């Protein structure tokens, strides 16, 4: 099916007047210097200024704004805090960027039902802060949680270090109010489980702003765990650390967090955060357990024994909060730490079946030599989500392109071993080509049909998340020519 063609016959000055008629004064930004801060999200290699930035304050204003854009066929991109790493909030040159920062109120904490009703511009961490007085918290904790907002978390189906045990955003949102492109308000889900009809809540979550704009969300809160322990184990080889992960899970232990870092990542993080990591280790494993305190001591001893059996060279166990924070500090600083050792880094986000880790890392290090670009590996080991950080220098001609090509090969390898091109960062504008590798034409067509069911004129976040048929066809020809296409006959389930 061909897209319903968008007519780019927008007169900016006429549009500006119309936008001003539905928003408060000062809520429409149009001067070049006003637009500059909005030209990219966390993936700053891609930049684009929109025609205008709109900052509505009420659902009614947003609804009027969408109706207006729908009527005039103006493309729209919604943006939360702009911390996304795949260019999902990259503005449209011919369209309007809608910033949702003013929707920043926590509307209700309902401790009896363990629910928080919030506006989309509320920061992730603020939900847990507001719930703490009731002994509750919001489980998904993406690393950007002090800045990123719930609306963006829903759009990207954000994860975090605790998602093996506590799930992703999709498992923790129970209701939402959504505006579709024509301004229709949909109320989906509810505080009661298993809402009738199709699971539109799940479909909206992770839809990267292509289907609608969330204007309110109800989140599930969990009781704060009785106690928590963190263990650090150092190893002489990455594969010993990876095998230990399988041993822990095979023993019936479900860690709250389980992270693996390789040597380059350890050293950079240690230099940056001084977490006390062993600089000479080939890999470290961080394992967080939570639960009843008596139970935890026994479980920790079990984890310690498993790590020792795989040749752990050092084991630290943190019980008190300060010690635990110190052990986590290095891991949480891993990304900024890269800024110290290289001018730029490109963060990959594939997920693989955990047992394939050693061979995937072997390929990565081989390609690292081939491309002449160093890679540090940070791995959400519990759930198989791999973050290779490719180090490069954008000022050196050709390095960015090499980094991107290298990254593309890593993602295609993830698909080949039975995984996916993106575990938590989303497709955005960044991984459109790899979508053609992960999905068949028929599957991509089905995604387009879903998109059309919500937004038949394809005005919402157009050009993101789902590649066009044309793009995949072009890429297919290119890849076959270059002989790099992973075997199409491979089972990819």
């Amino acid at each position: 099916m061909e897209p319903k063609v968008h007519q780019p016959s927008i007169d900016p000055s006429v549009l500006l007047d119309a936008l001003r008629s539905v928003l408060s004064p000062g809520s429409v930004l149009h001067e070049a210097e006003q637009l500059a801060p909005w030209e990219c999200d966390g993936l700053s290699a891609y930049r684009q200024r929109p025609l205008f930035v709109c900052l509505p304050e009420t659902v009614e204003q947003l609804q009027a704004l969408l109706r207006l854009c729908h009527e005039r066929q103006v493309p729209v991109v919604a943006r939360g805090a702009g911390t996304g790493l795949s260019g999902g909030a990259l503005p449209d040159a011919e369209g309007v960027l809608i910033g949702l920062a003013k929707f920043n109120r926590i509307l209700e904490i309902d401790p009896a039902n363990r629910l928080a009703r919030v506006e989309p511009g509320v920061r992730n961490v603020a939900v847990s802060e507001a719930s703490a007085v009731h002994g509750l918290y919001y489980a998904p904790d993406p690393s950007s949680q002090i800045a990123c907002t719930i609306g963006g978390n829903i759009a990207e189906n954000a994860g975090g270090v605790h998602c093996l045990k506590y799930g992703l955003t999709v498992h923790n949102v129970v209701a939402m109010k959504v505006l579709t492109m024509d301004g229709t308000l949909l109320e989906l889900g509810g505080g009661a489980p298993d809402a009738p009809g199709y699971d539109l809540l799940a479909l909206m979550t992770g839809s990267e702003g292509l289907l609608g704009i969330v204007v309110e969300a109800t989140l599930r809160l969990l009781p704060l765990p009785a106690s928590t322990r963190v263990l650090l184990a150092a190893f002489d080889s990455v594969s010993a650390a990876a095998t230990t992960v399988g041993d822990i899970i095979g023993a019936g232990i479900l860690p709250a967090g389980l992270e693996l870092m390789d040597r380059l990542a350890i050293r950079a993080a240690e230099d940056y955060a001084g977490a006390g990591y062993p600089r000479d280790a080939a890999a470290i494993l961080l394992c967080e357990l939570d639960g009843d305190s008596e139970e935890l001591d026994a479980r920790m001893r079990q984890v310690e024994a498993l790590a020792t059996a795989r040749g752990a060279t050092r084991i630290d166990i943190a019980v008190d909060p300060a010690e635990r924070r110190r052990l986590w500090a290095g891991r949480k600083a891993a990304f900024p730490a890269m800024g110290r050792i290289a001018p730029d880094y490109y963060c990959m986000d594939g997920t693989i079946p955990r047992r394939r880790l050693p061979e995937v890392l072997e390929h990565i290090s081989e390609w690292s030599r081939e491309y002449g670009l160093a890679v540090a590996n940070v791995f959400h080991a519990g759930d198989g989500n791999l973050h290779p950080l490719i180090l490069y220098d954008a000022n050196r001609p050709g390095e960015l392109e090499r980094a991107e090509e290298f990254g593309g090969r890593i993602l295609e390898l993830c698909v080949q071993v039975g995984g996916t091109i993106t575990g938590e960062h989303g497709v955005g504008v960044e991984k459109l080509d790899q979508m053609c590798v992960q999905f068949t034409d028929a599957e991509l067509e089905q995604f387009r049909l879903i998109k059309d069911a919500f937004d038949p004129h394809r005005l919402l976040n157009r050009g993101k998340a789902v590649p066009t048929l044309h793009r995949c066809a072009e890429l297919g020809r290119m890849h076959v020519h270059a002989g790099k296409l992973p075997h199409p006959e491979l089972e990819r389930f």
Partner: protein
Amino acid sequence: MDRDLGEHLCQTVRQACETRTPLCIRGGGSKSFYGRTARGEPLGVADHRGIVAYEPTELTITVRCGTPLDEVEAMLTARNQMLAFEPPRHASAATIGGTIACGLSGPRRMYAGSVRDSLLGLRCISGEGRILRFGGAVMKNVAGFDAFRLMAGAMGTLGVLLDATFKVLPRPEHQETRVFECDSTQAIATMNAWASRPLPVSATAWHDGRLYARLEGSADAVNAARRELGGDALDEAQGFWRGLRDHRQSWLSQPDMLWRIALPPATPPLPIVGEWLIEWGGAQRWLRTAMAPKFVREMCARQRGHATVFRGGDREGSVFHPLPVPVMQLHRRLKEAFDPRGILNPQRLYREL
């Protein structure tokens, strides 16, 4: 026994699409009582069965949808793992595909998530006879829309399910059930007070003046929780929870019309005259009443809940809670996107789909 009938089923659907023949998808037939009246030529999928892959250390299992639940669970139990949502089986023929299509979960639902929460990906046949794969076999995957979760509870109206991958969890080492005497108001308050604290409660129920709580976890955790909660021990506890899960329990298994009411869990007892059995910390309540369906639905909607005619009653009427107009419009467009000729389980979920 294990067979892959994917291609064969795909051809059948393609032909039905060409001839606009409505299909009634049938697995084990254990839930044929559920939903609106089935229409169309039967499409048997029970022979498409077998476990495709089971990776205990990855916490994943991939199975063909005609595989009986019993077979899947036996395999998982042997490795001390489980499907956390505790799928009900209304008869031993219950298959994994029917479980997904009906979107039904058991006693652990509010404590470990629902069937859609455990799903990681699936393959299905669209209404035009195309095999589509959504999601995958890994824990975290945000590529493409979550179309696979859309299949959970869709009653087969969006696709014929072929195989599915689930996240599985370690089976708790220890299990124990405590019983308390109280009325339903107290029971709801108590269940919700427990859920607000880090206790190893994995199932709750109230019926006939008795509140039941299942504790699961390590022996240490269960012992500590028992000391804290008190109550009396329940003998035959496994049979008790299985009875609730599979509707073998004597009150649930009676043949007359049974309502399933879903509510925000802490909602006090609804003022509807009838007999009640409460589960899921107050979030799922079974009701037998002589009150009119319209009244029952109004009372539920007022508390932000919804009501399903689970068994019996008028299967040509609104079995599932009616949807608001804009939401139904979207449902129709989605149905059209997956099954443009409307041949898959027509009207099984709603008359309009």
